[in-house]
């Protein structure tokens, strides 16, 4: 038994300590940000805060949550995430079903599969996509952020692989009972694939919540930015270029604690959601990557 040998025990001890340190390093930046956001203004601006708040106060959160621009962005992000995820999942679900059929049943299946997979291999790139969005009249609207990602081919591939694992017998029984394809889809496939749909919706939700670049190029007014884009503009662009055209925002950013509070609120929904759904994520990843 190797467990009991002295070298293995020494290794094991070292291993536990090492892994604990790594895990700690992964969350250290967030802990630090949280500490800064809860600290008093003076110690935070003097860079004295480490991992624990100094002069504990909720001030930064009061200030952030009473900032109308910030709240509006937060609201837009919520809408975008909810509508965007719902539409994307509906479209992906509808598309995955026919594609999961054998090509004996649905003859042009292979053709359609390639039609979608090609979009993974080759894309028009930034400028042509931008021009199309402009020509479609989607500029400055929330649809520019929702529609282009509504057919997500990666999720499509994962979902259709999941569909293929559903026993054919169920479907045949339903067909004999006289159910149409839509009925089969809604009454058999939908309930059976709820765990998969939950996982993929979460991937999509995280994607929508974190997306910032499309807002930056397709929307003109900073008031209409979703939170991620808003944060990108006030935290990063201003920081690196020192452009001060945003007047009212500037006084807030000069304050480290408010900045930290904004960062933390931006990360919060994900921090709350992911530990509970970790096992689904893991399953989804493995289904999509390891094949026998």
């Amino acid at each position, binding site marked *: 038994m190797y467990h009991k040998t002295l*070298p293995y025990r020494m290794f094991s001890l070292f291993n536990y300590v090492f892994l604990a340190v790594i895990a700690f390093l992964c969350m250290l930046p967030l802990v630090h940000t949280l500490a800064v956001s809860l600290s008093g203004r003076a110690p935070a601006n003097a860079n004295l805060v480490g991992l624990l708040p100094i002069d504990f106060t909720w001030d930064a959160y009061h200030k952030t949550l009473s900032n109308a621009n910030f709240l509006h962005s937060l609201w837009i992000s919520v809408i975008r995430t909810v509508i965007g995820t719902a539409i994307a999942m509906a479209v992906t679900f509808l598309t995955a079903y026919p594609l999961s059929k054998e090509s004996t049943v649905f003859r042009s299946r292979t053709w359609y599969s390639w039609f979608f997979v090609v979009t993974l291999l080759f894309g028009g*790139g930034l400028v042509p996509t931008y021009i199309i969005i402009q020509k479609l009249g989607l500029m400055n609207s929330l649809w520019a952020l929702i529609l282009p990602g509504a057919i997500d081919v990666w999720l499509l591939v994962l979902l259709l692989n999941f569909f293929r694992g559903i026993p054919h017998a169920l479907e045949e029984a339903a067909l004999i009972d006289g159910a149409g394809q839509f009925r089969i889809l809604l009454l058999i496939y939908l309930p059976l694939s709820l765990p998969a749909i939950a996982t993929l919706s979460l991937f999509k939700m995280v994607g929508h919540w974190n997306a910032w670049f499309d807002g930056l190029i397709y929307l003109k007014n900073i008031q209409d930015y979703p939170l991620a884009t808003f944060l990108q503009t006030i935290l990063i662009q201003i920081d690196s270029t020192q452009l001060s055209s945003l007047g009212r925002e500037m006084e807030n950013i000069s304050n480290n604690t408010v900045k930290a509070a904004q960062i933390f609120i931006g990360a919060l929904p994900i921090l709350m959601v992911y530990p509970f759904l970790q096992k689904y994520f893991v399953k989804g990843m493995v289904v999509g990557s390891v094949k026998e």
Partner: protein
Amino acid sequence: MLLPGVILALLFHYLPMFGVVIAFQEYKPYLGVTGSDWVGLKHFRAIFERIDSLQVIWNTLLIAALKIAFMILVPVVFALLLNEVRKMAFKRLVQTLVYLPHFLSWVILGAILTDLLSPEGGLVNRVLQEWFGIPPVFFLGNGDWFRFTVVTSEVWKEFGFSTIIYLASLAGINPELYEAAEADGASRWKQTLHITIPSLVPIMTVCATLSLSSILSAGFDQIFNLYNPLVYDKGDIIDTYVYRVGILSQKLSFATAIGLFKSVVSCILILSVYRIALKTANYRIF
């Protein structure tokens, strides 16, 4: 049922593909695709004549190659170490914590890192100075340090999540192999060397080959949120360059030409790499 998906794909994926013709034109927005003049390969020649675009291609290759190398190595080592942990609660806790950064966007992390790495009192530089007496390092303002920071922070953000695949394949190794090795008196180290690592090689090959196809994408989100004019020379990659040249200074055709160059090379890489993965490890997408 296919209709909504097909329409969306046509609009947002196929139309832009036809839009690449503007790479062969002197595109003027008010003239449109039909009215602009054709200039043939002029913009493609320009890519290879402009010194900054060669530098940009080199930056992209270097940063992407470093990322790929470390993103194979680190998750494998981490999965091996985690696999030795017998206490399930500890294992789960470590996993939960190391996945965390994967779910945060580069906007959030960019803002946090800028603060942590600041030479004027950022936490990292403070620790370096107070504990080791090292003078402040300008991580994001010096080109070489910038590359180092980009690769390190990418590995830091993603290694936990990539570990999942390797942990899954470790769980799939036949336990009888270990029992047999132990009966023969092999130590844990020997078992790792002769059973565990060889069983991981196929999945490592797949990951390595598949990641090769992204060698021209070194991470737009990350670099865009971390860089600044001080490090354009060593930190600019193709995607950030296309954004700066294309959208900001309105050289739409030139930017499209670079984008097209990138897409074509990536597409060829993906197809050949997929073929290799299919042959060596029997990997299929669907």
